[in-house]
């Protein structure tokens, strides 16, 4: 981005894949002027080839997925912010790089002006290049800038301390994603980030300094000026012209915002058959949503290619595993700096040096980023060169990175269980940043413990397990059906379990999509396909009574009107959906004119003739959402109300329509609806949580009182209709969660494997989620996530077999006293008595059923059970290593 000069031979970033240097044609002297060529001379491997020419290759493929992404909006043309002129006006992307440990400033937050001083005050300007028809053509909302600005402000404070002043200038705070509202709340309450509702007029430099004067108008219309050291422009996302040209070449329809035109019920399908879209080309979005629709695009492509599955793939070659039996442990210790994440607190070289002094350690070093691809390759090479047979990585946490490093071992031919991680980031540098001395000491302790443990590790084998190629989807709403349809189209038997007597879920109550499609019509098409598909089996009026088994082999007990049956399946998808809150405020229930949003939809669906005769209609937003007891945004209601307001206007253009809102969250191209509504004369009035609207019924009159935030006066509206945008409440099912051992958050939504990268699956293998059970979302997102869950499921089902963990318990029949405690105590029924043979009546453990919890090991008085990977001697070794050797 040009924050600092990049050499003409460069690597994009430390963890880049592939991690290869390349040459920047724009700055290379040789390419530009035909001189130099030093790199070619000095490269020891002769990798530099200036004769490389562009080659055109033709690929024959069955399907195409478009994921070209966005480019950040270039604010240079905004002369009022003087981005191009003033060094301390930067974009949010540039600020990300400044925060990054691998960035140009190594994570140290400084101004980009020559003095490189630490800023004391930073301002963020929202909606730069979004929601703006004035200075650019991007009328849509980019959807991510509010959150990233808050994140940057919070992290900047983390880097520079609480004294740093962070102010965010915004129009509507759009924190509609999962757990976003709490983050916003914390930023303001806990971290003291200032939120100022204003669109900044202009920035002028303070004479003779690089400081910046900001002029803006407060909500009550007062002109203010304030001086900041740094201004971060929260630039929006836009589709680059090359991409839109490319799309046009492909004859793919685009939206006014140049995003790909998709239908609500087929959210990743482009207008061209066989071509699918995901990521920001589909619409501006954040990472989890991109992950969801990329999985959805994958399954959509897979659906049309199901019959040629496995025809083009090759099996990866395995590096043969070297035997370490009878070898003295030769341990390699890699201490990760994790940029400044660890090295900023812990004295990493000292830890590495210390590690080298530990018994059996033959090699110890430190890495900048152990997880980057080149480091991985170097590590594998070191393991081979030094004949290491055990490895310790002191870095972040095994919960996220153990598999990666284990892979490195496998690539070096070492059994992946000959590995141990010392958690010196999540459980050390990040939590003891004010105590570097003790943190370094702790890191040494943890490394020592890991070294002692790993010395005793043994290579383990993993058992292979057949996967039952059948899927079970819990919930027959939109997302559940979408998941089932994808699974069935990909060729897998699928069962839908629905509590109610009808498929459809909440969609049965909806009138129109934001894109204008008729929900009921599309829904009945979908239900029709589901009901007639040969591979889909619908179980209505059915409840789950019991779940046994594990990934690949679940056995679920079903009960339907008194009949019981057992369903065997390999994967399960939770699509249990949500319901609207039944409000208790705003006089709901006291007057037939006061309805919920869905009740209004019902009127539309039924073509209620009374609607067009209304003189006035009022919408109140955030009914039950974003309240202390429900600290989340229900995401769908703003768009829904705006659309319904427009529908009313359409029925009767003279109708007075008011929308009372807190922040209007028509994210993405839904913003166009908002714009349209304003143009059509829908009146939007903001209220605050402290000052909610009052609803009174006086002499048959329905009166809504609210404070107008612009004029600061109380308004009283007499209305004929009051529509309440009520919160979305998950169908919390603790029993189900317990059956599948999947977590629920405090609000009752399921907790996915990873907030960003694993939105449609659980940490529990073989269990997936989608739809509003994950978080409130509109139909297109529900369908996309249904498809995504199916896609994630298919990645398991397509494998046909899986390997169980090597970390399981095993009995030593010589030591077993056959007392039966293990058989009695195991929650997974893994131990049993051997029936015949030399060890008859001794206990044995089924490796597939064993979860490796170790309960039996602790209960075994005879010490006859060993837990591979966490055996007594290994844990003792850690305990013994607690203290520095005597």
């Amino acid at each position, binding site marked *: 981005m040009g924050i600092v000069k990049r050499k003409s031979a460069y690597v994009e970033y430390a963890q880049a894949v592939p991690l290869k240097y390349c040459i920047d044609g724009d700055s290379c002297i040789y390419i530009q002027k035909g001189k130099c060529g030093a790199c070619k001379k000095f490269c020891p491997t002769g990798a530099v080839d200036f004769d490389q020419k562009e080659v055109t290759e033709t690929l024959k493929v069955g399907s195409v997925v478009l994921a070209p992404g966005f480019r950040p909006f270039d604010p240079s043309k905004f002369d009022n912010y003087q981005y191009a002129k003033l060094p301390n006006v930067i974009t949010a992307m540039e600020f990300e790089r400044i925060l990054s440990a691998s960035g140009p400033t190594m994570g140290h937050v400084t101004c980009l002006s020559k003095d490189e001083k630490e800023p004391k005050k930073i301002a963020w300007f929202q909606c730069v290049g979004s929601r703006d028809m004035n200075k650019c053509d991007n009328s849509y909302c980019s959807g991510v800038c509010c959150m990233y600005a808050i994140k940057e402000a919070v992290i900047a404070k983390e880097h520079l301390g609480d004294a740093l002043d962070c102010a965010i200038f915004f129009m509507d705070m759009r924190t509609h994603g999962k757990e976003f509202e709490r983050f916003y709340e914390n930023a303001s309450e806990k971290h003291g980030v200032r939120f100022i509702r204003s669109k900044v007029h202009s920035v002028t430099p303070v004479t003779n300094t690089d400081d910046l004067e900001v002029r803006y108008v407060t909500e009550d219309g007062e002109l203010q000026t304030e001086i900041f050291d740094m201004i971060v422009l929260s630039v929006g996302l836009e589709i680059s012209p090359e991409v839109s040209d490319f799309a046009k070449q492909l004859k793919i329809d685009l939206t006014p915002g140049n995003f790909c035109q998709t239908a609500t019920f087929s959210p990743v399908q482009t207008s061209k058959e066989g071509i699918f879209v995901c990521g920001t080309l589909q619409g501006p979005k954040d990472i989890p949503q991109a992950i969801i629709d990329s999985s959805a695009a994958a399954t959509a492509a897979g659906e049309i290619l199901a019959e040629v599955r496995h025809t083009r793939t090759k099996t990866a070659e395995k590096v043969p595993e070297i035997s370490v039996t009878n070898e003295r442990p030769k341990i390699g210790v890699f201490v990760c700096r994790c940029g400044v994440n660890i090295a900023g607190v812990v004295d990493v070289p000292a830890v590495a040096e210390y590690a080298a*002094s530990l*018994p059996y350690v033959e090699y110890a070093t430190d890495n900048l980023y152990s997880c980057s691809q080149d480091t991985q390759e170097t590590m594998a090479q070191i393991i081979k060169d030094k004949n290491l047979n055990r490895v310790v990585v002191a870095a972040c946490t095994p919960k996220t990175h153990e598999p990666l490093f284990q892979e490195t071992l496998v690539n070096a031919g070492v059994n992946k269980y000959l590995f141990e991680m010392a958690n010196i980031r999540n459980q050390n540098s990040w939590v003891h940043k004010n105590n570097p001395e003790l943190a370094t000491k702790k890191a040494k302790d943890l490394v020592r413990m890991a070294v002692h443990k790993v010395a005793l590790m043994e290579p383990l084998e993993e058992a292979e397990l057949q996967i039952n190629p059948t899927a079970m989807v819990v919930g027959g709403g939109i997302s559940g059906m979408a998941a089932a349809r994808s699974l069935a189209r990909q060729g897998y038997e699928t069962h839908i379990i629905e509590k109610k007597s009808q498929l459809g879920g909440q969609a049965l109550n909806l009138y129109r999509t934001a894109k204008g499609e008729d929900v009921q019509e599309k829904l009945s098409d979908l239900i029709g396909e589901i009901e007639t598909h040969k591979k889909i089996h619908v179980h209505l009026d059915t409840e789950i009574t019991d779940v046994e088994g594990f990934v690949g082999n679940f056995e679920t007990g079903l009960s339907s009107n008194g009949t019981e049956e057992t369903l065997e399946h390999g994967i399960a998808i939770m699509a249990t959906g949500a319901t609207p809150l039944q409000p208790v405020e705003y006089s709901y229930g006291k007057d037939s004119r006061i309805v919920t949003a869905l009740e209004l939809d019902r009127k539309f669906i039924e073509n209620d003739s009374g609607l067009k005769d209304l003189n006035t209609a009022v919408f109140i937003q955030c009914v039950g959402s974003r309240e202390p007891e429900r600290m989340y945004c229900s995401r769908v209601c703003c768009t829904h109300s705006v659309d319904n307001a427009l529908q009313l206007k359409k029925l009767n253009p003279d109708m007075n329509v008011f929308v009372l809102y807190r922040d209007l969250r028509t994210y993405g191209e839904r913003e166009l609806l908002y714009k349209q509504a304003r143009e059509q004369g829908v009146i939007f009035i903001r209220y605050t949580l402290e000052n909610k609207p009052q609803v009174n019924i006086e002499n048959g009159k329905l009166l809504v009182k609210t404070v107008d935030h612009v004029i600061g006066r109380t308004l009283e509206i007499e209305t004929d209709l009051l529509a309440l945008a009520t919160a979305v409440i998950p169908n919390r099912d603790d029993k189900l969660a317990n059956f599948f051992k999947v977590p629920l958050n405090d609000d009752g939504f399921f907790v996915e494997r990873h907030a960003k990268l694993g939105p449609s699956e659980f940490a529990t293998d073989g269990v997936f989620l989608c739809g509003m059970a994950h978080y409130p979302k509109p139909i297109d997102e529900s369908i996309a996530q249904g498809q995504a869950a199916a896609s994630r499921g298919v990645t398991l089902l397509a494998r046909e077999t899986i390997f169980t963990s090597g970390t399981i318990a095993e009995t030593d029949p010589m030591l077993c006293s056959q007392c039966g405690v293990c058989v009695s105590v195991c929650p997974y029924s893994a131990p049993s008595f051997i029936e015949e043979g030399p060890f008859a009546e001794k206990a044995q453990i089924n490796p597939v059923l064993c979860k490796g919890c170790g309960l039996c090991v602790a209960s075994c008085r005879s010490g006859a059970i060993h837990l591979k990977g966490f055996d007594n001697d290994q844990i003792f070794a850690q305990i*013994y290593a607690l*203290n*520095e*050797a*005597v």
Partner: protein
Amino acid sequence: MKIIKIDKKNWASGLEDLAGSYRLFGPAKEEEFHNFKALDQGVLPDLTCLNTRLSPKSLIYPQSEVMFEYSLDESQEDHHIMKEVDKDYSPRAVIGIRPCDVKAFLLVRKNFDSPEYRDPYWIRAYEATTFVGLACEAPCNTCFCTTAGCGPYHEEGLDLLLMDAGDNFLVKVITDKGEKLLADAGWDTEVNTDEAAKQIEAKKQAAEAKISSFVTADRLKEMDTVELYSAPFWEEVAFACINCGTCTYVCPTCWCFDIQDENRGRSGMRMRNWDSCMYPLFTLHGSGHNPRDTKIQRVRQRFMHKLKYYVEKYDNGIQCVGCGRCVRLCPVNIDIRRVCYMMNSYGTSDNTCAA
């Protein structure tokens, strides 16, 4: 022969003098039992005890004895090298030990001090020790020393033999070591040797007469080992045994030990601990094979060793001094006298009678 008389009034002061040049050990009562302890300054050995609950073998051959130390720290020059530990082999005196217990050291010596192997720890400790015996005036009803090659006034292995004679102790001087101890204590009242010898002989006769318990071991040596080994009575002998090893731990003549390394971080020590042939692990091989896997084999081993193999190998009588500790302390009442009888009479018409 030299006999000394110690006026009991001079007993304490003499011991005090001794404490300057010897570490003193003697019986001391703790709660209900007597055991041998290092005597603190001014504490007198309790000579009233019948016999100590545990044998004094641990004075020479401790239950746990560190032999070497080592370091695993590869940064140290001498890592992985066994280094001897310093031990205190300064002169010690055991006051009030019973003749049977002292005789037992001579039996044990066969093991620790043989032409093939001289155990440095045992020998140095033994040689540093002066044994001041106390003759038994009132043996226990489980004492069978007289038939086990020993007796209440037995002198073998002692340096001095002390006898209670009312206000005085009579002391028979047996070795030069004993002589030296007397000199260090300042006990030098010689008495008429002949007269005293007579007096002692009478006391000895009286004491021996009080011993009612016995073992018969006359046939053991000539018996056929394999036949004895295969005798059917072992099942009955072994049945009650719970393999606790109490018998071997309290026995003054049991000498088996096991070597263990104990690590503490990057250093450790090699130590030997008493072991017992009663324990299943005693003969467990590294391979997992255990040649004496069953209780009956282990019980047989103990008795065969004491009463047959030892007899054959050393021609030194049975490996038992008749102290009776194992008889008194066996929790399930397995009685060596009875077993000895069964072995000795095996093959004759009468081999079932209990002792």
